[in-house]
């Protein structure tokens, strides 16, 4: 059993007004020295069965067609092993 994590971020050239609003709030909260904030989305997919090449290819398709809008967003797919004891 494994968890697959899909991270979705706005492309670098796309303005991120939410990230900017967070960044501008930081000095007020006493956090100095952070020059930029970009806000994105993280999806954790619990996969039944083995995460083999075919499963990853399907998740890649899912991310490309649904989880991310590739007009404005980039995504990455990575596998995270879930320890049996943690279940």
């Amino acid at each position, binding site marked *: 059993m494994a968890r697959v994590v899909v991270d979705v971020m706005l492309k670098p050239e796309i*303005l991120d*007004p*939410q990230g900017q609003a967070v960044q501008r709030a930081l000095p007020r909260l006493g956090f100095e020295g952070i020059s930029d904030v970009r806000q994105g989305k993280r999806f954790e997919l619990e996969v039944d069965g083995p995460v083999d090449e075919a499963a990853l290819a399907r998740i890649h398709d899912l991310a490309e067609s649904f989880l991310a*809008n590739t*007009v404005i967003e980039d995504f990455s797919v990575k596998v995270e092993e879930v320890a049996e004891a943690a279940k």
Partner: protein
Amino acid sequence: MTARIGVVTFPGSLDDRDTQRAIRLAGAEPVALWHKDKNLHQVDAVVLCGGFSYGDYLRAGAIARFSPVMEPLLEQAKAGLPVLGICNGFQILTEAHLLPGTMLRNDHLHFICRDQKLRVENAETSWTTDYTAGQEIHIPLKNNDGQYVADAYTLDQLEAEGRVAFRYLDFNPNGSQRDIAGVTNEAGNVVGLMPHPEHAVEPLIGTGRTDGLPFFTSILKKLVNV
């Protein structure tokens, strides 16, 4: 015989009844379509109306785009069925790649609701022939994610092909690139815009003008003359 124009209701649609009313006022027959419908009940055109389908979860329009009704709609839109997307409907059409670009959160991060001045740039689409090119109109705008973006190549192509259908005038309310308020596909049968023509069809309410009505009379004329 008049034209039958479908209006799709998704979970979270808000303006389906107003849109049906606008269609009726223009003299056509509105047909209620449901997001689970597997066919379009032989309508002559479809309007995807405003609202917050699926709560804008994931991205505005991203989940509605995969509704059962979208399958026949995509197929028939590509074959020439006239489709108008208003606000959330426009977002659904971009998510479905029937129209280029997409919408981001308004640049100022606030929901906006105002009477907006627009210029009709293209009066040759299925939904705009009752306007004249360059005509200035006032119709309401109300949204959270209205900032139109596309890459520079796409924007240049849209401009060159006359596919920027509407532009914001005097004031850009959401940071949209090149003041774009609405676009059309190449064939001119699929049109999307963020402002709401269906809220400007009676002098008694809204802007006090009927600047939105020509959307619905344009399509009626087109369908009845065919």
